[in-house]
Structures are given as C-alpha cells and as structure tokens.
C-alpha cells in the first residue's frame, strides 16, 4: 500500500494480447472486495499491435486513474521487453510478473532496431522481485493459447490482497460462459505459479 492506502497494478503487453479483459477482471475483483476502484486503458490507434498499458488502482479512496511512477505493487507484462519499457511504474518493493513470450516489433523486422538478446538478464538485474512465467506454454497445455493473459492474471493475483473466491467470481462476471471453464483453469495454474514459483 502507498501513502494513501491505494493498491496500484500496471498490466502491459502488445495490442491484441487481451490486456483489456485482464484489467476489467482486476477492477471487478477489487469492487467485489468492497474497494473503490479506478482503471484506465488505451483504445484506438495504439491498440493496433503497439505497446499497450492498462492501469488499475483500488483502495478506500482513489482519485486519479493513472498510476504514479514508482508506486505499482505489481507490474505484470504479457511480453518480455514490455516489462522493461514500463519498469518505471513499479514500486521499489513491487513484484514484476513477466510472461517469457517474445513478440518481435516491426521495427526489428524492418532492420531499424534489434530485440535485446540479453532480455532475461536485464529483467533479473532490473527487478528485485521477479516472477517469470511461460504463460503461453501453460495456456497452450490447457488447449487455449489465447488464455495466456489469464495465466498472468492468476500469477499476479498471488501478490494482491484479494481472496481466491473473489477472483473466481470476477472471472465469472467478465468472461463469456463458453470460455469460463478453461479460463478458471488458466487462472488457477497462474496462481499456483505465484505460490510455488521463484521470486528473488
């Protein structure tokens, strides 16, 4: 908790990875737990394969929807280098939950830039508390590669003060019925990783 008793979460990735749904579920869970909540997401042009950020803040009283730099309890990223790009939002004692998925930006394909080969080392050096998750493989093993976002959601839930039942209720409210079952399993798998996985 920061000075005003607000919990902040930043969820980042690449447009199309399902950041918006993740943000909605966190907000729903916080509201179910009786908190005030504000979130913000990027729409429109930035969604088309660009870097995307969603911000969620909850507590007894929340003013702005934007997370101040250095104040997020959790920075969760669905792509490796996007965690680096948005590092500044994380609080010094916050946890970075990072999917090991790499998505090559067009700037790299066009030969104008290169994807850092030492991304893993950079993550380890930059974040004191880091959980790296192969979310895509976990989701793939469940037969639903599109649920990688919910695996990450499960993992980040391990570092927030909201009960498991509340998370599951939030999933029920926000996920379409035909995808609920597999997403509940994806969430549980992610949450297990947070419990058992290494955080430095």
């Amino acid at each position: 908790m920061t000075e005003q008793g607000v919990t902040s979460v930043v969820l980042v990735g690449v447009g199309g990875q399902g950041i918006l749904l993740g943000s909605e579920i966190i907000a729903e869970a916080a509201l179910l737990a009786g908190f005030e909540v504000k979130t913000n997401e990027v729409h429109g042009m930035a969604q088309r394969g660009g870097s995307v950020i969603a911000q969620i803040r909850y507590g007894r009283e929340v003013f702005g929807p934007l997370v101040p730099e250095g104040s997020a309890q959790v920075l969760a990223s669905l792509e490796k280098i996007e965690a680096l790009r948005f590092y500044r939002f994380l609080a010094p004692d916050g946890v970075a939950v990072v999917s090991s998925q790499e998505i090559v930006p067009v700037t790299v394909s066009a030969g104008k830039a290169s994807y850092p080969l030492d991304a893993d080392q950079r993550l380890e050096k930059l974040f004191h508390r880091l959980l790296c998750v192969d979310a895509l493989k976990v989701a793939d093993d469940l037969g639903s590669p599109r649920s990688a976002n919910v695996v990450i959601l499960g993992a980040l839930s391990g570092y927030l003060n909201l009960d498991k039942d509340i998370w599951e209720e939030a999933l029920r409210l926000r996920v379409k019925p035909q995808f609920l079952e597999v997403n509940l399993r994806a969430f549980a798998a992610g949450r297990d990783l947070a419990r058992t996985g290494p955080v430095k």
Partner: protein
Amino acid sequence: MQRKILSGNEAIARAAYEAGVNLAAGYPGTPSTEILEAMVQYKDEVYCEWSPNEKVAFEVAAGASLSAARCLVTMKHVGLNVAADPLMTLAYTGVVGGFVACVADDPGMHSSQNEQDTRHFARFAKVPLLEPADSQEAYDFMKLAMELSEKYHIPVILRSTTRISHSRGPVTLGERQASPNRIGFEKDPPRFVPVPVWGRKMRLKLEEKLQEMRVEVNSHPANRIEWRGTKLGIVTSGIAYQYVREVFPEASVLKIGWSFPFPDQLIREFCAGLEQVLVVEELEDILEEHIRALAINCIGKAVVPAIGELSSDVLKASRARLEGIEPSACQIPEPSEVSNLPARPPVLCAGCPHRAVFYALGRFDVIVTGDIGCYSLGTFDPLNRIDTILCMGGGVSMAHGMDRVGEPRKVVGIVGDSTFFHSGITGLLDIAYNRGGSTTIVLDNRTTAMTGHQCHPGTGTTLMGETSRAASIEAIGKACGIPNVATLDPYKMDECIATLKNAIESSEPWLIVSRAACPLHARKRLGPILSVDKERCIACGKCLNLGCPAIEGGDGKPRVNPLLCSGCGMCRQVCPVGAFIDGKGNCHD
C-alpha cells in the same frame, strides 16, 4: 440502488438513457465511440444511429429536439469542427427537447491528429459546458446537462477527455425517467428561423440566457469549494481535479464542474481568502486567462504544461517549479537495462487488405495524400506510402489541389470507406466537376475499423442492428461524373498493380475501390497459416517490406508467428522463391 463499474463513456450512455433521451446520434471517433455503442442496448426505448458525419448527427438531433425529443449527440473533439456550423446557430434558435452534445477531447493525442480544447467552443458558441472528473460525475453531469438544456432551451456541451471516457470507476445507477415532452413540432418562425430580422432578436435572447446562467452557476453544486487552508488554493476542472488531490492534499480547491459561463462570484469568493492561487487545467489557459481578467493574481501555465495531458507525475514537477525547484534535478537517470529497447509502434494488422495497396503504390513515383483511419499507419516504414494527412476526406480534395496547380508527379488521394461517406464525396465531386486528373482510391474494408468496427452507409446494416440499403461507392463515383471507376481485390497483388498502373498513367480522373473486409472484423482466417521453408528462403527481405507483424525478421531468416498469421498469402505473392509453405508443404494456393 445498483453500483457498477463503468467507463466514462458507458456512464454517459446510462445517464442519457435514465434522463429520458429519445434519440442518440453520432459519428465514431476515439475517445467518444463507446457512448453510442453502450447506448444501443436501450434501442427499444431510444432511437440510435451512426450518422454519416458529425454535422449530420448534430442536425438530426437538432431536428428531433425541435420536435420536443430529448437528444444526445456524440463526437470527438475534431468532430465538433465538422458540426460547428449547426452548433453556432442552434445556440441562437435554442432547443425544445433537451440537447446535449458530448464531445471528447484527446489531450496527449493518443489517437488524434491535434490537441484542440473544446472549452473554446463553449465560449465561442455561447453555450454552457460541463466537465466531469470521473465516471460517477460523467453520469451525474449527463443528467444535469439535459436538465440545463431544457431549463434554458439551449444546447449544452458535455466535455469528456480520454482519461474520463476510457477510465472505469463505480457508478450508482438509477431508473429511466421517461421524458414528459409530447413529441410534435410547434410552428413558430420567429423562434426557429434565424433570418436577419429574427436572428438579431435571437442574439439578444441568447445573451439574456447567458446572464441568467451567470447567476445560477455561482451557487450550483457542480461548482464547489473544498476549504483546507488559506496558504494555497487551486482552481481546477475535469480530470485535473483528481491529480490536484493527489499532489496537493493540503490545498484548498475550487472544483469547477459547470465551467462556462464562468462562475465569477464563486471564483472571487474563493481567491479572496488565499495567499496564493494556482490554476490547474488540462490543455489551454482558459480559466487562468479569465481569472486574470477578473483582476485576480494567479499562477497557471507558468508551472503547469499547456501541451500534452496532465497526470500526478506531471503535477509533481509543477509543484516543484512552484516551490522554486527545477524538476529535472529530482529526476532519476534511466537504468541501462531499459536502454535501446526497440520501439513498438502501432502497425497495420496481419492480413490487413490496405497493406497490399500501399505495397503496390510503392512501385510508382506518385504523391499520396492520405486520410484519417487505419490507413494512416501506411505512413510508416517499411510501407512508407502516405505523404500527407490533414483531416477526414482531406486526401481526396488535396490531391485535386496539387493536380490542378501542375504538380509534376501524379497525385493519388486515399480515403477509407466510412471516411468517403463522411466527407470524401464532395472532394470527388470537385475532381469530376472541375476537370481534375487525380486518382482517388477508396480503401473499402466494409467497416469503420480504427474506432472498433462500426457500421456505415455502405455496410447495409445500422447501429440498431437492422438491415439497410447499402450505398455503392462505385455508383456514387459514376453519378459524380468520374469517367473511370474500377474495383479491385487487394489480395490479388498483380491485379492491384495493373489497375493502379492504368489509373496512374491516365490523364483522366479515376476512382478505384479496393474492396476486402477487415479480417479483424470478419473474424475469420483468410487461408492456411504459413511458415517459412528455411531451405528455400534466400533471406532477400522482400516479405519484410510488407511490414506484416506476423513475419518476424531480425537476425537470420524470417519466421512466421502462427498466433498472428491470418493466412492472407501476401507474403507468398512477394516471395521470389516460393519459401512460404502451408501445413501440407505447398508453396502455392
């Protein structure tokens, strides 16, 4: 009472519904689009439409209002430029049924071509303006706007911004109160016909209304003083209020929700007891200028940026400046781990039919005047095939202007399907009428894609889900008098290049309709997912010139990301060695 998490846009739609709105019209534009998308769930009780453009939407609502209907019209900030003509005079005639124009600004230009401040329009048109600070206020102020509109018989602007429209927060909902108005126009020419003799009287009437509002605005609960201390007082409005509370917790605050006409008396009362007055407003110095005009000393844009959006981080720097500290002194240098990260700009999606046209245009030495929409992404490398962008429909007319002054190269104007209906037709008519020779390409992907896939006059469907008449772009071109009208399938690269060649080498005007549905909207794969046969690939880089996000290059030979590949097969058509193979190992369709 039900409490739900709603975005600002959803809150506005809900409140409009509860306020007894009979009609909601608009044109899609980030960040305003989701208001009507949320509104249409109430289509049994509220008539909803996507109009061809904002001017039409505004006029549709104006007409309905004169028949005593309660109306909501929605648009982004630049949309109000298009609708400015009816706005300026509707302020004179006044309205009958409540009329609220919800206009969403985009400070920081997240998805816009400029950063104009709609608050200027309220002062310009002499109409009241409300500025909510979160979803709950978006809801409350929508209802207030409707109430004020009917009380003063005047159109009211509800100004949202990106961080209001696209932020979510809890909102306490109520029930719909049906409008007591009986639908029916009552003839009254001196009231509704602004010919000079009556227009002059309307002008005076408008001033009377403003004078009445100038009194009410001082005691209205939408404007409130929060006293905390006398050392520092902050005058603020909209989302900026939230950042003020975070960064200046000890300061007294005058929170202005109904910001035009200005609450002069309240401002004077607030500032009188303070040692220092700071004005924190997003974008222009409208409040600051007015407060100075009241002969009150204040600080504003000297410490708070006028460019870009505000945040608590931005205000922390403002606070430092106010306290005489150079904010850069507090900045922590960026760690080396985050240096040299490759940029990740937005790109045309995998399988986007626009890509083929831009790739083909790369073969010709032409100037391409572009437009507002997904195709603006054709500007960037490696496609790099748009040379100018101005406004909706501007690409068509600008091409004609260049052509008529003797621009030595051929000029090609690009416009989207929805944009063509919005304001491309008049430009095309001009080319035909004034004997132009430019080529117009309509990138028809059967939807308004950039804003999230809305229907338009060419799709054959309406916002309310009805089947409708689909306007034909080709027939419109012919009716305008364009002698050469061609339709092409952009996924057939050879056909695309051949048609472009015919048009570009011609001295006559051409209209080319490149037609293929947006695959993101159609939600279906176009063909088999491909992969690169490393044996055959000669790493020539031709496929990478498509700028397809599914083809990942970098070191070594390109790979196809199967999660992104749409199976459009453009890469197959540009590969000289047949290295793109499907699951069966075939290198051709």
